[in-house]
């Protein structure tokens, strides 16, 4: 079982310095702009910056598209202060007691990401080193357009990143890998699973002509009728797509940003049961949420889960661990851990 035990960040995104210890299931909570998604993004890079997560989507694409503003697609945001003062960011992962470092290095016109596996160096040494030649180059790309210049397939963890923005990519991925997905019986299993949530008796998910020479992904009902997945509620689509993509790609780590979005308590309960199965099966799950309801449902369902409150004070990441009972106790004291 490959798990990240600890992640250390230096000059990464809005974080000057920070460290988070991760459990088999970790729920990150806290006010807006305190680095919750940044931690997921730092973990995402462990997948291999240019290795596809799903069709047409690599960590590089995710990082670029999540932050794209007007025509700026660049990845300067990976470095604190957009590289104006600090030219290097470091992400240190402790995995099975071994240390791996990713160094994000800013040059005048390009950014490169290098990997040191089994690193023995101190963070300070890495920050001060002038040249980085011996370390494996994972990727280099142009600063302002994120155009790839060179890349390798270095990776040390298989990761899946789930956020509602990527659902269309998951559909394309399902279309491309349809034979394998059907062969693994993921479509039937997922259809039966989702029937517990919606008032429809589904037996399968299919790809069929939708008229006019176009194809659609459909939920196939036992009475023979069909509903396009895109016509289902957002939460239902999210559950179906994530269940299939996780089932097929078999990642070591599942990152889920804003897990509560589109989920009503019944959907959250089902999701919590599924996450519990994943953790039991050796997967690591890291979630962000703004919902105490989601936090409590998931943390109560999944054994070995940890809730971490994040706070960012002048770039320093502060963390505090809570159990679900402590969260409830604070609520009864009139304190909302998220604010």
């Amino acid at each position, binding site marked *: 079982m490959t798990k990240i035990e600890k992640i250390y960040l230096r000059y990464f995104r809005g974080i000057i310095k920070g460290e988070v210890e991760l459990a088999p299931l970790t729920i990150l909570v806290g006010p807006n702009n305190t680095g919750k998604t940044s931690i997921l993004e730092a973990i995402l890079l462990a997948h291999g910056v240019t290795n596809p997560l799903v069709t047409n989507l690599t960590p590089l694409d995710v990082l670029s598209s999540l932050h794209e503003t007007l025509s700026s697609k660049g990845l300067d945001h990976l470095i604190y202060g957009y590289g104006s003062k600090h030219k290097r960011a470091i992400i240190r992962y402790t995995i099975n007691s071994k240390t791996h470092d990713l160094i994000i290095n800013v040059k005048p016109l390009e950014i490169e990401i290098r990997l040191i596996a089994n690193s023995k160096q101190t963070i300070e040494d890495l920050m001060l080193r002038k040249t980085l030649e011996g370390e494996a180059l994972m990727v280099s790309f142009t600063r302002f357009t994120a155009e790839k210049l060179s890349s390798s397939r270095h990776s040390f963890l298989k990761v899946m990143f789930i956020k509602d923005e990527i659902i269309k990519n998951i559909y394309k991925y399902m279309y491309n890998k349809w034979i394998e997905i059907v062969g693994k019986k993921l479509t039937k299993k997922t259809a039966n699973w989702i029937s517990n949530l919606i008032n429809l008796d589904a037996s399968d998910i299919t790809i069929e002509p939708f008229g006019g020479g176009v194809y659609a992904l459909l939920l196939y009902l036992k009475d023979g009728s069909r509903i396009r997945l895109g016509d289902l509620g957002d939460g239902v689509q999210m559950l179906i797509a994530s269940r299939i993509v996780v089932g097929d790609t078999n990642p070591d780590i599942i990152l889920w940003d804003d897990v509560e979005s589109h989920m009503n308590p019944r959907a959250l309960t089902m999701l919590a049961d599924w996450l519990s199965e994943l953790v039991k099966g050796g997967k690591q799950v890291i979630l962000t949420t703004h919902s105490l309801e989601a936090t409590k449902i998931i943390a109560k369902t999944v054994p070995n889960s940890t809730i971490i409150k994040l706070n960012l004070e002048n770039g320093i990441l502060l963390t505090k661990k809570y159990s679900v009972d402590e969260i409830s106790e604070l609520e*009864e*004291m*009139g*304190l*909302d851990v998220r*604010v």
Partner: protein
Amino acid sequence: MKIFFTQPSHRLSIDGRQILKRLDFRNWKETYSNKPSRRNLIIIANGSPDHIAIIILLHLLNHREVVDMAFPKHKHLAIIDYIPKYMEEDYENIILIIDQETLKITEIHNHIKNKLNPNQYEENKDLNNRLAKAIITHGNRKATLYITINGIEDKRFTKHTIEDHLLKLAEKKGLIKIKEKTDPKETWKNLGKEKQEKILKAIKESEIYEIFPQQVEAIIISHIDILI
């Protein structure tokens, strides 16, 4: 002081954010903060309308310092057990607003002393012991707790709550006549919304130290301690 509600979605927080505007207080927006203090805390141990009275006082006292305001589910003396937990959340300057109810004031102080075992405990005799300052420790944490007991020395009330102060003000303004054996909570409730708002608005033109002496003193001295 500026107020940050520690549970923004709590019904009293939502109500509290609207109350100054509803009562036509000037510059009402300036009394609310969107950033927590995480150091200064007011615990409203008996819910409503205590929160309204305290918000108005904080507005009129107009300090710049932020204070967080919590509405615990554990009411009245039950909250005392949780004071160390607030300290674990980094609060070190805590004002507790609590009703006297039908207890003797000494019973409240003794309960707090027994539960929290304070290093120092000073009762303010000028305020009929309705305000006390306690220095408490929990592990390596230290906090100052201001115990503010709502109620006034008026034998017509069958128990003592924040409504004592509001009804006394109403009587002074000629809006009501307090009878013998008045239950302040019931009487306040029966006044109706319109009359209640009239009384709350009247706080603006009143000598707040005369109406709410222990609450005003607690806010002022805790603020001085913050600055020190």
